């Protein structure tokens, strides 16, 4: 009960002041002083280069993709062990954004404004990187080699942004051309993810496959993907699709193939490389086995399901163990990322990371000793086509094109091919069924690639 007409605010003022001071203290304590390097560019000193990225390390989007950044670090480890680039060692700080663009925005600002990174390299995701594309470009921070096949990374309005992997539309066109050539007259059905990935892929397919052949267009939503896509599969079967083209993540590939097998529907699958890596999809398909039955039985069952699947690749697959690039990749992992190798082995994701890491290192080398952000961008635009990577085709970088690879070969998974062996088991391998072909995201035709394919430089191939 109150005894007087006032309220005792002394306490509240004290609380307010105390808390404000506490917050000030906390934030001042938590923010390290800005790097006073007095160097040629933020994040660059005479002995080191600091780069950053945001990738999903946790959460539903993480499976598989969390292997890429550590694989890149294997390449940087090798480079640092051999004196770095122009005497500078690479320090790669990749942060977990959980595939949430709000986190990406915060973490990217932290990397740029507080940690003063030289560039972001190999950040992952379309929605996540789209959120920071404007910010990075306005701050003139290179947004290099975004891990996404969206068409958005080659945009004259955003000169700091670069893609790397083949755009989904390019992939759709190459696979579409293959379907047109080899399955002419057959009924085609699509199953695609309901976002940019699926839409761009289908756009490419539609440029090649006559629309009269497409009898069913099914989609699924990635965020609510929980159970089998039985309805979509049933619709495809009902429409009589003999060829099913899929723009699916590995989980969705499995969740489509399982109900299809259950109802005895066996179309010719043509699947984007995003969702067709056998060591990734294989374990998911092992659910189809009965009561487990041991790893051998599982491998046999999944090989049975994946046999004959058509997909594509832009570098030599992990199962091609005699390929010099595959040998180099394996060595890099075993020497500089042994725990990653023990966990995942050489699979699509670790190969991706190594190739991306090699690309960045050569970009640094091309930029030279006087390393600035502008120098790096010009180096990529000017010399990118000459970089030596595991890719079948050279990178396409120029002052007007910021896409990386735009060439793929079509691959068929086959039990006759050497298997892909990883710590989780032995998975079906693939054989090339077409020559390497290139195209662009626009209306250009799909043409055979007649140039050379690079081999690893001697220093990389021979050294430990």
């Amino acid at each position, binding site marked *: 009960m109150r005894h007087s007409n006032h309220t005792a605010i002394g306490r509240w003022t004290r609380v307010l002041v105390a808390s404000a001071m506490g917050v000030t203290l906390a934030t001042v304590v938590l923010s390290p002083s800005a790097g006073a390097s007095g160097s040629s560019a933020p994040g660059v000193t005479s002995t080191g280069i600091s780069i950053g990225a945001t990738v999903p*390390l*946790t959460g*539903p989007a*993480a*499976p*598989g993709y*969390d292997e890429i950044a550590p694989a890149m670090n294997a390449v940087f480890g090798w480079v640092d062990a051999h004196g770095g680039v122009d005497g500078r060692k690479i320090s790669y700080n990749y942060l977990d954004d959980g595939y949430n663009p709000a986190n990406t925005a915060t973490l990217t600002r932290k990397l740029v404004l507080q940690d003063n990174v030289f560039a972001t390299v190999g950040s992952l995701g379309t929605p996540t990187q789209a959120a920071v594309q404007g910010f990075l470009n306005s701050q003139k921070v290179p947004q290099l080699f975004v891990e996404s096949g969206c068409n958005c990374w080659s945009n004259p309005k955003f000169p700091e942004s670069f893609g790397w992997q083949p755009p989904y539309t390019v992939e759709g066109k190459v696979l579409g051309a293959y379907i047109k050539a080899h399955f002419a007259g057959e009924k085609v059905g699509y199953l695609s993810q*309901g976002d940019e990935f699926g839409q761009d892929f289908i756009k490419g397919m539609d440029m090649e496959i006559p629309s009269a052949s497409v009898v069913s267009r099914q*989609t*699924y*939503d990635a*965020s*609510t*993907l*929980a*159970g*089998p*896509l*039985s*309805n*979509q599969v*049933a*619709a495809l079967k*009902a429409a009589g699709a003999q060829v099913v083209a899929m723009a699916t993540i*590995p*989980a969705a590939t*499995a*969740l489509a193939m*399982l*109900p299809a*097998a*259950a*109802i*005895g529907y066996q179309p010719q699958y043509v699947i984007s490389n995003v969702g067709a890596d056998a060591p*990734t*999809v294989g*374990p*998911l*398909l*092992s*659910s*189809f*086995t*009965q*009561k*487990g*039955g*041991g790893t051998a039985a*599982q491998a046999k069952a999944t090989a049975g399901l994946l046999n004959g699947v058509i997909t594509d690749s832009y570098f030599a697959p992990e199962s091609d163990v005699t390929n010099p690039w595959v040998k180099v990749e394996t060595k890099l992992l075993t020497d500089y990322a042994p725990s990653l190798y023990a*966990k*995942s082995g050489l699979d699509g994701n670790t190969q991706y990371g190594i190739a991306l890491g090699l690309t960045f290192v050569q970009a640094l080398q091309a930029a030279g000793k006087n390393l600035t952000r502008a120098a790096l961008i010009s180096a990529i635009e000017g010399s990118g086509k000459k970089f030596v990577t595991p890719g079948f085709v050279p990178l396409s970088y120029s002052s007007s094109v910021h896409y990386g690879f735009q060439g793929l070969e079509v691959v068929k998974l086959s039990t006759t091919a050497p298997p892909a062996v990883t710590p*989780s088991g032995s998975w079906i391998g693939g054989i090339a069924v077409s020559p390497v072909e290139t195209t662009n995201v626009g209306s250009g035709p799909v043409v055979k690639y007649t140039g050379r394919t690079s081999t690893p430089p001697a220093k990389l191939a021979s050294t430990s």
Partner: protein
Amino acid sequence: MGLFINVTLDGVSNGMIFAALALALVLIFRATKIINFAQGAMAMMTTFLASSLLAQDLGYWWAFVAALAIGFVFGALVERVLIRPLKGKSELNPVVVTIGLLVVLEGMAGAIYGNASRGFPAAYSQSGITIGHSKIAFSHFDVFIVVAVLVLMIAILVLFRATTLGLRMRASAFAGEISRLLGVRVGMLLTLGWALAGVAGSLAGLLVAPTSSFSPYYMDLVLVYAFTAAVIGGLESPVGALIGGVITGLCISYVGGYLGSGLQPLGALVLLMVALMARPEGIFARPPARRV
């Protein structure tokens, strides 16, 4: 017409799984008037443990039984350690604690099992049964799902209706103080309720795993649909959980089949809201008397 049949059969087998998890929610709600938001994550954990056992080449049925047993113990443990201290306090506390448990379990599963993709085998063949000359979208495994959930349901009903133990459990839930005065060990029986819920949840987890992307989050949507099922059926009725489960399963399946898979949670929400406006206590519940 073929699509309709497939979608209906799909809805029935999914619905049975929702019913199993809904049964777990019902058992817990009957005992302690709490909704255990972590029930799905607990089931996920026991199924992951079962998959570890399978990797050690333990035989499928041994791993199956082990998962159920671990579920029993886990349920009891959670009640004792986390829920008992909350007795008598605000309604918000158990909601937050069970959500905290959900977060911890998913984090632990992610940390221990990592992000590698994995699958979980089914108890029986998942190939559709051949009727005439075509395969229908109902396999031997789907039959097993229906049978297993029905067996569980009947066992629970028999326990509650026909045994002294069941009578004591019902008394503890309905009138705790009086039961205590009459010598019933109320605390022990509440723990038993949670333990049985753990078994039901584990069963749901084992039945869902083969047809899902087997990750730490695979039970999240199942929990939400099971909640819908439990509420529709009446949160205190095991039979309601079964009927509610099938209704929810069919609804989700039709929405997914005819409108698109992304709209399934919306479909469940609409179903829930319609059911609540029409009959808030649920189909099988008696309207509760309110103490004024």
